[in-house]
């Protein structure tokens, strides 16, 4: 795909140069060198070189804050995604956080010969079944474990909690022993080749597993399976986020929660909220737990502020300022716990709370946990 095709596909030529995108962009608020309008303008003037050589192209969070504001309905996040693939073809990459280990692991997982040991955490207290028609997607959690151990964050705990909830609902899900990375980060950083290979591996395994539904505890995997896989591969099954799955099951199966006296606030992950429009399901789940008081932040729902980094690319001091702003909003609600529904939001916020350079902007410390962990605590035995 060349620049001309991208402009056609994302209707960029309708741009009025009004600058609403830049004025609402969370990155542009801190980084004066980043401007969605400027990027679009460069593309429309045909400055392909300027566009792809611009390192700021990788600063976009693709969080979809701008697109609904655009009077001409230009799909900026998709434009950025496609432009990044041109940039990669020209040898331009974003600055990868964690020295690019996560991107490298995704590429390594495209190898057809690997047999992963990704279910070693699975202990006897959890029930899984080979012939279940529900699949629980584990995703990158086993790889996050060593990489983020310094942050005292365990992505596998979210999976364990999800599994516990499903077991208590009387569902024994299936787990795939050799699932690959969903390819979300590869796709959004422009590495389409890796994405396609991962998608094919996953689609083959899912077809062999003969499941009717896949449940995700990670919104990025969910988005990729729901919106991006259908363009490349056929899955032949339904996909759902854990919060939707739970909201559906509320009131069924005699689901009972014990009381948890806590004030909480909820961070809408960009992939779950603005990308897929799931705002109500997690709130419904939170409100159905007795004792939980949900206090919304100043910006919530469609307006919620992003966690600052997407696809582990271009994570810089501006990202940390953005996180500090969001954590300040969370602390200002007076809530005890910040709930997210995305393991990556949690990683980024936890990382910001360990930030040493806080003299620029104080980063408040707040307890942070995943929706699945909270529900698992509430649903536990009396």
């Amino acid at each position, binding site marked *: 795909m060349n620049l001309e095709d991208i402009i056609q596909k994302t209707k960029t030529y309708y741009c009025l140069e009004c600058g609403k995108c830049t004025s609402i962009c969370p990155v542009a608020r801190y980084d004066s060198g980043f401007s969605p309008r400027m990027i679009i303008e460069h593309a429309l003037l045909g400055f392909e070189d300027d566009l792809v050589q611009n390192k700021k192209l990788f600063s976009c969070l693709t969080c979809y804050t701008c697109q609904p504001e655009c009077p001409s309905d230009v799909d900026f996040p998709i434009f950025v995604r496609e432009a990044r693939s041109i940039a990669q073809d020209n040898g331009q990459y974003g600055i990868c956080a964690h020295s690019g280990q996560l991107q490298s692991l995704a590429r390594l997982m495209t*190898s057809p010969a690997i047999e*992963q040991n990704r279910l070693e955490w699975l202990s006897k207290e959890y029930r899984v079944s080979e012939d279940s028609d529900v699949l629980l997607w584990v995703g990158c959690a086993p790889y996050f474990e*060593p*990489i983020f151990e310094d942050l005292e964050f365990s992505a596998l705990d979210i999976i364990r909690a999800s599994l516990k909830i499903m077991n208590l609902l009387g569902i024994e899900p299936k787990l795939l022993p050799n699932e690959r990375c969903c390819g979300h980060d590869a796709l959004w950083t422009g590495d389409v080749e890796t994405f396609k290979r991962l998608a094919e591996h996953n689609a083959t395994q899912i077809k062999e597993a003969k499941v009717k539904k896949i449940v995700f505890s990670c919104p990025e995997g969910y988005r990729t399976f729901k919106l991006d896989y259908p363009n490349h591969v056929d899955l032949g099954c339904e996909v759902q986020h854990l919060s939707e799955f739970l909201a559906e099951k509320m009131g069924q199966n005699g689901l009972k929660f014990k009381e948890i006296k806590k004030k909480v606030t909820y961070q809408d992950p960009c992939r779950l909220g603005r990308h897929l429009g799931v705002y109500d399901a997690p709130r419904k789940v939170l409100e159905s737990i007795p004792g939980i008081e949900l206090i919304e932040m100043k910006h919530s729902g469609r307006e919620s502020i992003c966690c600052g980094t997407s696809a582990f690319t271009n994570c810089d001091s501006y990202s940390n300022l953005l996180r500090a702003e969001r954590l300040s909003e969370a602390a200002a609600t007076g809530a005890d716990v910040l709930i997210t529904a995305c393991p990556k939001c949690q990683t980024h916020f936890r990382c910001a709370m360990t930030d040493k350079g806080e003299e620029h902007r104080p980063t408040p410390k707040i307890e942070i946990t995943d929706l699945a962990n909270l529900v698992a605590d509430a649903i536990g035995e009396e």
Partner: protein
Amino acid sequence: MAGFEPQIIAFCCNWCTYAAADLAGTSRVQYPANVRIVRVMCSGMVNPIYVLKAFEGGADGVLIAGCHLTDCHYIDGPVKCDAAVDKLRKMLHVLGLEDERLRREMISTSEGVVFARVIKEMVEQLKKLGPSPLKVKMEALA
């Protein structure tokens, strides 16, 4: 596997192991030519991504070798290196890679013979294990 010659990438610290490899050469100690040495200033600077990239590029084994614990030119390089190797092992284990493919050694300047022995042992082990399952660019190498 007949005729399989493993490729090893060795990250050697400038102050100890690289000099040991030099010593092995000048003393005419024979060892297999399956190793490509990358000189690094300290074993503590070997970031996990270096090793992942080596495997991505088709390496069958990776050696990280540097000074002994108390010899480090930069005081605590080997400690940092051990921490990185620890993380790496966990990652590579999840990926399904045999533990033997990543080797961590401490070889001082005077131990040219040890360097040769380590390479010999690694080549033998890797020949038994066969090519790395992580060879993403298998077609390109063939």
